[in-house]
């Protein structure tokens, strides 16, 4: 049994995008890696919309397009501002997205993660499924030196533990490395998968072959709470979902299910789902707190990657690419330290944070650091008043009813001013611009 006492070069907790990216990169570089996943297989517990951003994965597995289970590549993006009966939209569709190496794909995580995990094993990592890491093992100095699991037996030792455990960060919490996730910095999202024959999807969304459409929506659909809805086309199904900040749900007592039912029955969404059969439903927490919610990321013998580090760009709906990138950068840090035979001390592992700072991950999160708070504090306006105003302005403008256009312009302007003072609107616009910069 002696070999069990030999420490691994690294243990990765979790087999989502960040954990798989990290375990794959380290194993490929010849490190002795153990990855531990609580699900029956990678992907069995993982939930996402889900959009895959090619760039982040390409940097890890350049030839992924030949093997990974992908659904459709996205050629059209629709951004909808919704009130109860209408949506005003901005659509962008381009044949440029029908490139040889498309930029974004819709995926089904249960299949995609399973594939990614098979690559991790091929690269030489040892992967345990159906095993939950319960806590970290520390030495007398407080340095993390291994993990304990829910299985009987001795703890497993490693030079460094990478926490890719997802949004809740339970292992980190239990081990005193971080605080509980705050209810106002995570969203609870629910989604359903609706089966439709591929011909129907293609006809309904004006697509051919493997082209796909993505709809992101905000407005009264979240009943005044901070949140967004979405609808993604897969090969033979549609993912439809909606999510809001957890503390908003608690305040309003609206249930996620009510919200999703109302969204699915919205006159702009309902026809897109007509005759479909719901085959699957899921719920998940999404870290939305942005830059200000990022916990401590490294310490003696440990690194945090992916959702556990709150790495989600809520404004651009990006998450899995940040997860994979942080996983990759953590792997590069550990590989370089291992090669140089350096200890995994807090000071040495801080290199990870330095590298993150130079990547798009931290630059983007820093850029939008004020947005989550701004939207949340002014949710009544951003998710209620403005969508309603825009919708009524559109309606006044487009309805032909014998009223002259000058009067219509005046009516629209008056409506805006009466609902929300000029100063209020200018203030919001100013704050938005400032937060965006």
């Amino acid at each position, binding site marked *: 049994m002696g070999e069990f006492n030999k420490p691994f070069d690294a243990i990765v907790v979790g087999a989502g995008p960040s954990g798989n990216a990290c375990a794959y990169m380290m194993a490929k570089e010849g490190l002795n890696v153990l990855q531990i996943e609580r699900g029956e*297989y990678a992907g069995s517990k993982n939930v996402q919309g889900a959009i895959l951003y090619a760039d982040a994965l390409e940097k890890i597995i350049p030839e992924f397009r030949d093997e990974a289970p992908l659904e459709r590549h996205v050629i059209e993006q629709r951004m909808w501002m919704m009130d109860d009966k209408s949506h005003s939209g901005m659509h962008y569709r381009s044949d440029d997205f029908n490139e040889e190496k498309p930029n974004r794909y819709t995926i089904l995580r*249960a299949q995609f993660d399973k594939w990614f995990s098979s690559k991790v094993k091929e690269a030489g990592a*040892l992967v345990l499924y159906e095993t939950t890491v319960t806590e970290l093992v520390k030495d007398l100095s407080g340095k993390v030196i291994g993990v304990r699991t829910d*299985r009987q037996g*001795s703890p*497993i030792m490693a030079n460094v533990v990478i926490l890719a455990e997802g949004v809740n960060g339970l292992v980190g919490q239990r081990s005193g490395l971080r605080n509980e996730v705050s209810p106002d910095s995570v969203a609870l999202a629910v989604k359903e998968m609706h089966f439709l024959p591929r011909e129907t999807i293609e006809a309904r969304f004006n697509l051919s072959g493997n082209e796909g459409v993505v709809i992101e929506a905000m407005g009264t659909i979240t009943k005044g709470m901070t949140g967004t809805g979405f609808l993604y086309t897969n090969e033979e199904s549609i993912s439809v979902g909606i999510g809001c900040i957890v503390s908003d749900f608690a305040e309003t007592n609206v249930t996620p299910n009510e919200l999703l039912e109302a969204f699915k029955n919205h006159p702009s969404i309902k026809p897109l789902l007509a005759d479909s059969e719901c085959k699957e439903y899921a719920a998940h927490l999404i870290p939305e707190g942005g830059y200000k919610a990022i916990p401590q990321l490294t310490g003696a013998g440990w690194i945090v990657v992916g959702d556990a580090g709150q790495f989600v760009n809520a404004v651009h709906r990006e998450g899995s690419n940040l997860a994979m990138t942080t996983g990759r950068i953590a792997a590069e840090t550990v590989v370089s330290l291992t090669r140089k035979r350096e200890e995994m001390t807090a000071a040495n592992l801080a290199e990870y944070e330095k590298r993150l700072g130079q990547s798009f991950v931290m630059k983007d999160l820093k850029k939008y650091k004020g947005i989550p708070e701004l939207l949340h504090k002014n949710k009544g306006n951003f998710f209620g008043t403005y969508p309603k105003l825009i919708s009524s302005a559109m309606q006044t403008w487009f309805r032909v009813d014998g009223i002259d256009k000058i009067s219509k312009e005046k009516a629209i302007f008056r409506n805006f001013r009466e609902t929300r003072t000029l100063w209020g609107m200018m203030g919001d616009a100013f704050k938005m611009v400032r937060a965006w910069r």
Partner: protein
Amino acid sequence: MHIVVCIKQVPDSAQIRVHPVTNTIMRQGVPTIINPYDLFALEEALRLKDRFGATVTVLTMGPPTAAESLRKALTFGADRAVLLTDRYFAGSDTLATSYALSMALLKVAEEFGKPEIIFTGKQTIDGDTAQVGPGIAKRLDYNQLTYIARIVETDTDAGTIKVERRAEGGLQVLESKLPVLITMLEASNEMRRGSIENALIAARAEVVTWNAAAVGIEDLTKCGLRGSPTIVKKVFAPTARTDKAEIVEVDGKVDAKAAALVEAIFAKAPAVEQDLLEHAAHHYV
């Protein structure tokens, strides 16, 4: 003692979907599991291992992906995994399967020692035939104990085993000489959770993989579709029943509820009311 457990990787039937358009079974994306009945067989084998220090080999026939199920069996504490895989086995019915497995079992006996006990589950959830176990016993000339609910006693010195077998009309207590093939009933035990050491061994283990030639099968006409007299003529999804259960909601006492319920039943099925009235009339004349 050497024990072999024959398992099968099956689609998780709880998650099988029928394509709404083509009406065929959609296998893609359906998770696979170890046939649940086989887990009772495996746990029973592991208990004998705990008691007598037996070596437990798990054996399966299937596509290369069936190695996943074998690896999972190792996480529970089995010692060795053998995969019998060959494209010539595709489409095997129970006759061809029991032939191929019995040849593999002879090879197992040659390589790792003759098994005193061969375990299987009582049947699989995708075939429901319960024929492969007895087929193997017949071919290897092992005594067979089917539908076993409990192993009462194993006497390794005398080479005997005593079991309880659930049969129609009662429980039989049977004793047999070893070697023996046992098919286990559901709920006969509860599968353990393997230790972290077992999980690590399983993740590292090499699965012994044999093809038809490796187990000495020369006559390929006994294998796969060619060796299978059973033919699946048609697969279809049964249409869902149109009548739905109805909930009768009544406030008030139990009697009122009962009366409302009876009334609702009579309204739905007047024949029942008629029958009861006639029955009552008959009684009170």
